[in-house]
Every structure is written in structure tokens, then in C-alpha cells.
């Protein structure tokens, strides 16, 4: 009974730490993005609240929280209210299976540095990412506005298409590691990271993951200049904030997944595991911000053609080649 209770408390502490870190980094990722985008566009970026604008995320969240929560009259109320939560929830839940360090021993008990090591962790991530579509699609539908509906439909189509290439790009990783568990996949990369043997998978996964997170050049669901923010046009206050948190948590999760599947997870010299994972996550996030500052938005038909005619066939060929190598 005591052992069970201690295990439970450890689990709660782990969840609290991970949740707090994710949300804290999400807030400061917004600051990093605004600052970096400002520099890329030869501006200064936020610089009024605190030194270097460091208090800007806090000011923003206070503003969001105290704003009026407006629900337009013609919306489908229940769905409208729940949709942002779906986006934030699925993004946060994905982190539950990401290992962030070696087992540590505390008071004679080994504590694995992962919230839940289930044997179908990789499929759990797919499940969560495919459920995230509902937040976007239903948020757009429930708003009962043309632009939101268009954004929602685009979001659904885009996410269905790119989920396929994400799934296919990870099949070689599973073949090499021989397991769906992220802990095993990281353990299998102790000698060398998989990006060295699976560069094609790495590129396909990175592109598709960027499309899943709906960021430039794949931000068609929210294309500001044609749809006026798309699926979240009608949202205000903290409900809009939840969509926002969902996006920035998603960026971190994608960074973590890219690290786990291709960059060796928490493995690295000198520094402890969690620090290495954080460094890799941030590196991916910075590259994504850089891409956002560089590339223009794709057209809808280009997006679909790119997903179905280039990424999916490339991923399939890659699976066949990897299968041949694994057999030999």
C-alpha cells in the first residue's frame, strides 16, 4: 500500500513538473518567436514590458485571462466552447509518452523519467494527433461563419493528408528499433542517432510534422490575409489563448518527437538527459521559427499535391528499401 502511494505521488509530481515546464516554455516560445521574427524582418520585436520585453508573455497571458469570453449568438454553443480545449489537451497529452532522461534512483527506488511507458506509445501519439483535428474542424464549424468553416475544412483535409506521411515516415524507425515504445526507440539509438541511417524519413517527418502544426508555410487553415485567422476567427480571450497554447505546445512536442525518433532522444555527452532533450527541442523550434520567417505560404492544391504525390510515395519507397536492409 505504501509503495503504491509513493508511486502515485511520484507520478503526480512528474506530471506537474512536465505540465508546468511545457506551459512555461510555451509562453516563452511566443516571446522567442516574436523576438526572432522581428530580427528576421529587421524590427526590434517586443521590447516594452521588462528588459528585452521579457515580461511580455506574462502581460499577454494576463490580458487573455481578463478579457471577456465572448460567445457569438449564432454558434453551436457546446461545441464552440469545447473545441479549443480539444486542441490544447491532445497536444499536452502527447508528451505523456516522451522519455526525458535515464532512470534515476531516489531512496532505493528506480524512477523512470517518463510519465507512461506503454508498449504502443508511438500509436498513442498518432491517436492523439489524429484527435487534434477535431478541435480545428469543429471549432471552425461551430463558429458558424464562412471564414471559420473554410479554415476548419482546410484544417481537416490538411491534417488527414499529412498524418499519412507522418505514419509512413516512422515505419522505418519502428523496423530498426523493433518496438513501438519510445523508451525502447531512444535506447536503440544509444550508439548513433537514426537521422544518420534514415535521412529521408527525417525530412519527411519534419515536413509533415510542420504541416500538422499548421504553421507557415502550411498555415492554410488560418491564412490571415484570405480567411482572417480561419478556424479561430470568432474566438476571443482565453479560448483563443487555448488554441494558441495548443500550437506552441505542439511545436515543443514535435521537437521532442523529432529528437526521440531521429536525434537520439536524451542521449548526449556531458550534460544530463533532460537538458539534452530540451536543447534538441529548442533547436527544432528555432528552425521552425526560422522557416516561418523565410518561406511564403503554399497554395491549397500545391499543399495537397506535395503531400500525396511526393511525401507519401517517397515514404513508401523508403519503407521498402529499409525493409530490404533489415532482412539482409
Amino acid at each position: 500500500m505504501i509503495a503504491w502511494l509513493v508511486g502515485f505521488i511520484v507520478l503526480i509530481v512528474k506530471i506537474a513538473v512536465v505540465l508546468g515546464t511545457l506551459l512555461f516554455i510555451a509562453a516563452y516560445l511566443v516571446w522567442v518567436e516574436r523576438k526572432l521574427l522581428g530580427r528576421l524582418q529587421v524590427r526590434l520585436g517586443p521590447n516594452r514590458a521588462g528588459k528585452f520585453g521579457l515580461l511580455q508573455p506574462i502581460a499577454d497571458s494576463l490580458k487573455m485571462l481578463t478579457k471577456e469570453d465572448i460567445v457569438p449568438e449564432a454558434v453551436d454553443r457546446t461545441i464552440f466552447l469545447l473545441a479549443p480545449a480539444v486542441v490544447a489537451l491532445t497536444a499536452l497529452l502527447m508528451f505523456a509518452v516522451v522519455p526525458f532522461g535515464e532512470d534515476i534512483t531516489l531512496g532505493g527506488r528506480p524512477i523512470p523519467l517518463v510519465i507512461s511507458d506503454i508498449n504502443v506509445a508511438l500509436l498513442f501519439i498518432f491517436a492523439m494527433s489524429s484527435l487534434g483535428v477535431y478541435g480545428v474542424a469543429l471549432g471552425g464549424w461551430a463558429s458558424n461563419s464562412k471564414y471559420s468553416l473554410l479554415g476548419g475544412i482546410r484544417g481537416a483535409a490538411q491534417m488527414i493528408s499529412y498524418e499519412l506521411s507522418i505514419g509512413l515516415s516512422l515505419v522505418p524507425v519502428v523496423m530498426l528499433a523493433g518496438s513501438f515504445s519510445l523508451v525502447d526507440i531512444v535506447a536503440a539509438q544509444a550508439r548513433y542517432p537514426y537521422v544518420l541511417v534514415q535521412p529521408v524519413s527525417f525530412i519527411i517527418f519534419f515536413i509533415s510534422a510542420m504541416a500538422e502544426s499548421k504553421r507557415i508555410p502550411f498555415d492554410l487553415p488560418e491564412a490571415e490575409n484570405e480567411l482572417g485567422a480561419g478556424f479561430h476567427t470568432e474566438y476571443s480571450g482565453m479560448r483563443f489563448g487555448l488554441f494558441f497554447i495548443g500550437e506552441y505546445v505542439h511545436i515543443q512536442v514535435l521537437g521532442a518527437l523529432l529528437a526521440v525518433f531521429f536525434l537520439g532522444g536524451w542521449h548526449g555527452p556531458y550534460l544530463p538527459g533532460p537538458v539534452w532533450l530540451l536543447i534538441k527541442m529548442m533547436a527544432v523550434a528555432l528552425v521552425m521559427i526560422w522557416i516561418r520567417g523565410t518561406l511564403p505560404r503554399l497554395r491549397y492544391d500545391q499543399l495537397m499535391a506535395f503531400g500525396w504525390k511526393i511525401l507519401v510515395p517517397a515514404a513508401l519507397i523508403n519503407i521498402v528499401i529499409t525493409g530490404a536492409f533489415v532482412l539482409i
Partner: protein
Amino acid sequence: MTLYSILFYILAAVILASTAMAITRRDMVHAVIYLVVSFFGSALLFYLLGAPLLAALEIIIYAGAIMVLFLFIVMMIRIRPSAGRLLSRVQLLPAIVMSGLYVVVGAFMVTGDTAGRGDFQPAVAAPETLGQYVFQQHWVTVEIASLLLLVALVGAMIIGGKSPPESHPPVEEKS
């Protein structure tokens, strides 16, 4: 009653209720959402029975892919909720006959078979074990199912794809 049995009955109630809601909603989007909840319940049931792989696949394929496709179509063609009777008499009769049949068969199975009486014992099937079982014992079934899907895919491409103009027979003009 073990904890597993309690969870089972809660899940079963959720699945039944959400499915009933799904087939009685007039608004198609609401029906789709209730059906997603129902699939979610089934997935949790699989997990409870010790098949995490099936649970994950149920969510990815049914809740995550097929229902999103449904939602996509419903959103795109914007069906107005119908105002008339939900189920006409022609639809209602077969439904009642079939569900009556199911109730009778179910009652016979529950009373006749004693194997299902004991306490609920979960088994655990690892993904590797399940995969090896399916592909070693039932590979013919898997191949037939995949062939069926391939045929459906090709058929959908032929129906949905742009047909070249010369393949159409010239339309005869009415004199």
C-alpha cells in the same frame, strides 16, 4: 464485482448511450461527435481487455481517420437538419425486428454459456505477439482484406478520376 467489471459496465453504458444518441440526432455533426465518443469507448474496452494495440488502432483508424472524413463531408455539403419524422415506418420495422433478434440471441448466450460468468480476467497481448499471431495464423485473411481494399481504391479512382474526353461515346442529339 472487481474494479475491471465496474469499469466494463461504465464503458458499456457510455458506448450504448452515445450510439443511441448518434442514431437519433438530427444534426449530422452532432451525430458524428457522438459516434466518435462511442468509438472512444470501444477503444477503452479493448484496452481493458488487454489489447492496447487494438485500442490504439481503433482510435487512429475509426475515431481519427474515418470519422474525420465523415465530418469533412458533412461540413462541406452542409446538410440542413431534417424537420420530419426521424425514422419512417419502413426503416423502423426492420430495425425493431433485428434488435429483437439480437436481444433473444443475447439472452440465450448469457443463460446458456457458463464460461462468461466468472470474474473478468484481463489478458495482455503485446503488439509483437498479436502481429505474429495475425500474420502467421491468418495471413490469408489479411491478404484477402488488403486485396479487397486495393480493389476498392482502384474503383474509387476510376469513379472519381477525370475520364479522358475521348473515352465518352458521343452524345446522340435528339432530333
